[in-house]
């Protein structure tokens, strides 16, 4: 389907259509909306990581000045167990409803137990303090080893592991087990000249979007609700809120606001149904925003993991067998990103024998949510680190080792199907050739390489195109623009229609105005919604040809479309002037009415995205501090529609991955209280922490997209973890198999190594 062609608009670094509003402060984000009579909702949260809720007394709070509504779990309808199948995050509506507001148990520190709406935030907060909750404290489970122990306390009573060949007889905190295998892994290890095995751990981390969750909701006496929400997917907010509150989907209208970052964390709901219920009880519009502290404690971070990887290889570097044991914390409800983590772990490599076992494990922490290539950074950090260890043992260049085993078109992915055209080899070769791979390093400096992979996604999208009476173009679609996607949509519409980019505007419409569209996530927007925009544009072109034919009095199949104009086909004997889009639009009323193009589709064939990263670091041996000196991100994106925003995805993902590698982690007390719930101590990279991030875009077109687009947003976060860890090893000679590589951890490892070296020397 991908067409080789010269592009006029695609590939141009245009100014995004929503840009001016975003640099002038006009753009309205989640917390920027207000309605007449609006009041403020706040949430009371559990001070315990695991406790039975014995009773909640809200009488005093309800009588306090300014308080117009108080709700608890008892005010929400009961929601039955039902898998969430429509949208993004895996899960169950019952869990979702219980996560929004605790019922009989508080399952993590920060779990919502009650909410208040009052005429001011101060009054609402004062009322929260007056709510009396009686808890019976239970032992919290805070890590994988404890939760997977045979005699562990259960986070969810009566939970039986799914995915086992036989139904287990005993409940467990392991919600799901999954297995992927091929060949004979034991035989493969016997065939190997060298076998390496190691255990790696990663901590709970947060997406760290700068805009906290925010919404404004109002519901009338007829049960019709309107919600303004900062979300990656307003259709999911609609379906989830309707389900949690027992409303008809048609009675919930969700208007997406501008969104201040999400990275997967805004693919689910937290305060939205609470705001609607408070509005119902108070008769007023209710605005709810999470504080930064609440975002850390009670939104959805990414899983902490423990990954055991084993790799066997021949002396020439050929991989003979690989195995992975992957445990992911799910938080208090099942549904971590273990499965995609398991599917990604060996995806870049050809190996005949492998065994992958994954475990989705409940602990008393907030329910995890998607975070950019969910699941992949953790498992691939482990595998890409161990490959580095293997390369060192084999005396091979780490890029050569990967080239030796890299998947290419026709190779069978570890997760099942055969790859179509992919660009992994091209990325590896570009890395090998890159000047940054050859820069000499100084004392205490090291270079690390790692690969990244993400599937990218298709799914359902809709688009409409309206041709305005002056020939300008309005594109209407349903994906919140989280990083410049309006520009990509406008570029694609301009390309197809043959009109200048500046004549195209893009509207992100609400759930009542746009056709159903899956969430902005899975790196799917430019691919799938872009495909819908292209199809809608082609619909318009078809109509324009008909209008031109009608104007000229010839058959529609005698008309061509070129350079934004209808022209007679070569050889057609008609003495007519080409008709521009503007001319056809001006005459639309006389040729059949307004020009309206549309497309709705379930896009298949998202193109897998591969990357290779090169990190250079310097380690301060006295303090254990690791500084990133240089970072090079190379990625196959299929086709870069707006190269500036593609580079931006690569750079932003690199920065998040570097933060994950070096400093970011949830620090828990022994009682399960997060001790660093703020940007002061949850340390995301600041401007002075990072160098410029060099990017190289590789374009191996995706055959399933008209322009070759693969999607690019998620792959960039996968490789940096191992690239930085491998560089740190190269700089120090010491391998640290747990993230983050924070100064205390690095210094302790250096001192240990020095101690044991000294011991050996002495011995």
């Amino acid at each position: 389907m991908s067409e080789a062609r010269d592009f006029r608009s695609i590939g141009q670094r245009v100014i995004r259509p929503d840009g001016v509003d975003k640099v002038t402060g006009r753009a309205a984000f989640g917390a920027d909306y207000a309605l007449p009579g609006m009041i403020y909702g706040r949430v009371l949260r559990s001070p315990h990581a695991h406790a039975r809720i014995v009773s909640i007394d809200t009488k005093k709070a309800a009588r306090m000045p300014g308080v117009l509504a108080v709700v608890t779990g008892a005010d929400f309808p009961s929601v039955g167990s039902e898998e969430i199948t429509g949208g993004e995050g895996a899960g169950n509506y019952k869990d979702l409803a219980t996560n929004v507001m605790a019922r009989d148990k508080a399952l993590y520190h920060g779990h919502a137990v009650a909410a208040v709406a009052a005429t001011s935030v101060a009054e609402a907060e004062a009322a929260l303090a007056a709510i009396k909750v009686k808890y019976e404290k239970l032992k919290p489970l805070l890590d994988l080893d404890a939760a997977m122990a045979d005699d562990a306390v259960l986070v969810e009573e009566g939970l039986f592991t799914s995915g086992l060949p036989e139904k287990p007889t005993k409940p467990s905190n392991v919600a799901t087990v999954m297995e992927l295998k091929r060949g004979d892994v034991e035989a493969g290890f016997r065939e190997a000249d060298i076998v390496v095995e190691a255990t790696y751990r990663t901590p709970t981390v947060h997406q760290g979007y700068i805009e906290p969750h925010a919404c404004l909701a109002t519901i009338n006496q007829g049960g019709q609700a309107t919600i303004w929400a900062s979300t990656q997917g307003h259709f999911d907010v609609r379906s989830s809120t309707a389900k949690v509150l027992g409303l008809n989907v048609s009675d919930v209208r969700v208007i997406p606001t501008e969104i201040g970052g999400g990275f997967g964390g805004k693919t689910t709901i937290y305060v939205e149904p609470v705001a609607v219920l408070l509005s119902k009880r108070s008769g007023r519009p209710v605005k709810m925003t999470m504080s930064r502290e609440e975002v850390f404690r009670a939104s959805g971070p990414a899983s902490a993991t423990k990954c055991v990887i084993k790799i066997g290889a021949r002396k020439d570097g050929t991989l003979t067998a690989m195995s992975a044991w992957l445990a992911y914390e799910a938080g208090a409800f099942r549904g971590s990103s273990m499965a995609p983590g398991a599917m990604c772990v060996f995806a870049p490599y050809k190996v005949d024998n492998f065994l992958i076992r994954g475990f989705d494990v409940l602990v008393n922490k907030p329910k995890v949510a998607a975070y950019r290539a969910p699941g992949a950074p953790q498992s691939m950090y482990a595998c890409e680190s161990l490959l580095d260890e293997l390369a060192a043992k084999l005396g091979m260049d780490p890029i050569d080792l990967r080239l030796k085993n890299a998947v290419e078109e026709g190779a069978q992915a570890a997760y099942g199907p055969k790859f179509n055209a992919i660009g992994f080899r091209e990325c590896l070769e570009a890395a090998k050739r890159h000047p940054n791979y050859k820069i000499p390093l100084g004392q205490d400096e090291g270079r690390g390489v790692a690969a990244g992979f993400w599937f990218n996604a298709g799914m359902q999208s809709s688009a409409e195109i309206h041709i305005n009476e002056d020939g300008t173009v309005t594109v209407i679609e349903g994906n919140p623009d989280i990083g410049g996607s309006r520009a990509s949509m406008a570029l694609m519409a301009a390309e197809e229609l043959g009109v200048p980019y500046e004549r195209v505007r893009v509207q992100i419409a609400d759930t009542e105005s746009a056709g159903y569209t899956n969430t902005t996530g899975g790196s799917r927007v430019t691919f799938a919604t872009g495909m819908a925009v292209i199809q809608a544009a082609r619909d318009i072109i078809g109509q324009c040809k008909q209008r031109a034919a009608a104007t000229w009095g010839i058959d529609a199949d005698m008309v061509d479309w070129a350079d934004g104009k209808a022209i007679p086909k070569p050889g057609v004997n008609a003495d007519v002037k080409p008709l521009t889009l503007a001319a056809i639009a001006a005459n639309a009323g006389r040729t059949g009415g307004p020009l309206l193009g549309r497309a709705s589709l379930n896009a298949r064939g998202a193109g897998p995205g591969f990357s290779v990263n090169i990190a250079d670091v310097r380690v301060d041996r006295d303090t254990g501090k690791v500084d990133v000196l240089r970072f090079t991100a190379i990625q196959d994106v299929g086709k870069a529609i707006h190269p500036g925003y593609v580079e931006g995805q690569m750079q932003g993902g690199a920065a998040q991955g570097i933060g994950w590698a070096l400093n970011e982690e949830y620090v828990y007390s022994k009682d399960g209280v997060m001790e660093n719930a703020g940007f002061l101590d949850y340390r995301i990279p600041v401007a002075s922490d990072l160098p410029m991030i060099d990017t190289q875009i590789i374009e191996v077109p995706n055959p399933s997209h008209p322009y070759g687009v693969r999607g690019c947003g998620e792959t960039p976060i996968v490789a940096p973890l191992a690239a930085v860890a491998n560089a740190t090893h190269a700089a120090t000679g010491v391998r640290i198999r747990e993230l983050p590589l924070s100064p205390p951890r690095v210094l302790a490892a250096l001192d240990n190594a020095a101690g044991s070296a000294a011991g050996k020397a002495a011995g």
Partner: protein
Amino acid sequence: MARVYFPDHLASLTEGVRELEAHVSSFRDLLEWLEGRYPGISDKLIGKVAVAIDGDIIHDPFLDPIEPGSEVHFLYRIEGG
């Protein structure tokens, strides 16, 4: 003749069979054919798993054509971030 693959976690639905050959021309036909052999299986597949037909991952397949020689893989549904 298309080849159809089930991963281990779904093989319980096919009495342990992980690889099948089917004479079908669309995913709808495949579901019907599978349902005939393993009654109840389609409820466990529709909306709960993703499918790759000749390498293209599809979240909600139904009308998608399956060519002779096609490879059909059932997969976990992959969410994104």
